[in-house]
């Protein structure tokens, strides 16, 4: 059988040098050096912790950090709660706000305005007037919310039709878009009327807080002034 010339060439490179006789010693020397370095760090940390002043400072720093974290949480919790209440209130007064009207229905069963009394520090007289304004607007807002829900359902139906049949009735969709625009306009106008009427009952500080919690209203860049 003929030998592969490549094997012949590879076989010529067969003679590696002998490893150094002190390789074992070198390995142990490196191990000792590594262990010294590790032990050095450990000793430094132990020495640091053996000093009472360092331990006291560390404990004080931990306590201060814990205190700051708890204070921050206490500060954040009511703020987040107020924002959540304002969001639900916004869902109540703005039919186009949010993805669905389920929140609005739920809020209407409870006492959706109670939070304002506490949060804005309203007097009894102010609260009664605001409540009356909201009760007057309520039937119209509920009717608008019903229209918004119906329009959303219709849009979903258009989308289903588009996916299943590949096309939709353009004229029907144009009519839907027209209705949508007019309902949107009416929603914006009624929400704006309600908010401004409510803000009129308040003093300046209450008004600023109220409008700040609500955030920007539809079609209105700044209604503070």
């Amino acid at each position, binding site marked *: 059988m003929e030998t592969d010339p*490549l094997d012949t060439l590879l076989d010529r490179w067969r003679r*590696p040098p*002998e490893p*150094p006789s002190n390789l074992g010693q070198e390995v142990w020397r490196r*191990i000792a050096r590594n262990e010294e370095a590790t032990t050095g760090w450990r000793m430094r940390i132990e020495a640091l912790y053996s000093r009472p002043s360092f331990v006291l400072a560390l404990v004080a720093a931990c306590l201060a950090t814990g205190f700051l974290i708890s204070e921050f949480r206490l500060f954040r919790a009511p703020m987040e709660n107020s924002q959540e209440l304002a969001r639900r209130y916004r869902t109540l007064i703005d039919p186009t706000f949010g993805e669905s009207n389920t929140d609005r229905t739920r809020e209407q069963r409870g006492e959706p305005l109670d939070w304002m009394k506490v949060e804005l520090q309203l007097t009894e007289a102010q609260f009664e007037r605001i409540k009356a304004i909201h009760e007057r607007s309520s039937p119209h807002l509920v009717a608008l919310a019903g229209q918004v829900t119906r329009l959303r359902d219709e849009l979903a139906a258009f989308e289903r039709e588009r996916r299943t049949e590949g096309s939709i009735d353009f004229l029907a969709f144009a009519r839907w878009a027209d209705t949508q625009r007019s309902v949107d306009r009416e929603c914006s106008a009624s929400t704006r009327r309600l908010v401004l009427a409510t803000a009129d009952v308040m003093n300046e500080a209450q008004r600023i807080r109220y409008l700040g919690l609500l955030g920007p209203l539809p079609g209105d860049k700044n209604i503070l002034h």
Partner: protein
Amino acid sequence: MPQSLQCPIPASPLPVQAEVVEDSNDRWVTSLREGDDRAFDSIIATWQKPLFAFAWRYVQNSAEACDLVAETFVRLHRKRLSLRADTRLSAWLFTTLANLCHNHHRWKKRHPTVSLDNPGRSGGRVETDALPHAEEEPPTTHMEREEDATALKQAIDQLPHDLKTALLLHHYEKLSYREIAGVVGCSERGVETRLYRARQRLRTALSGRLGN
């Protein structure tokens, strides 16, 4: 990288007795996991030659090969207490050393240097030829052998890490496909493929010399 170790004398490598190593493997691993330093000394004595031979062929520099082998043993000592009971020491050592060689090779490529001993070559990579030759052969034949040796080393040096490792472990360290598969982390079929590719590349690189 420290260059303090001396590796001067070329000599024939003493092959590791496969049966002895196989029998000792479990005992060594158990002793290592118990922190027995005598077992560690035995491992150094048994494995330093094959490991050094592999590293020397990989990096083609004695001092660097010594350094890498020493680092391999240091890592084994550091990991000895966390070794699994079924660890194959040969695979562990060659895998660690191959990775160290690979990292070292990449580092050298990114930081080229000029050797004072061999100013013509970057990195001081290739030392005095270690190919055997007869004393009585004519100077022209000797020169041809030197050129063949240089070409072979350069061709092996140009191989990708996986192919080079498989080739060196198979051809020079006589490891089985299964053992090489454990080192390079692939199947036995994968080792076969790598060896085939390595040989193909060498044939291409050395085509002008293989016909002689």
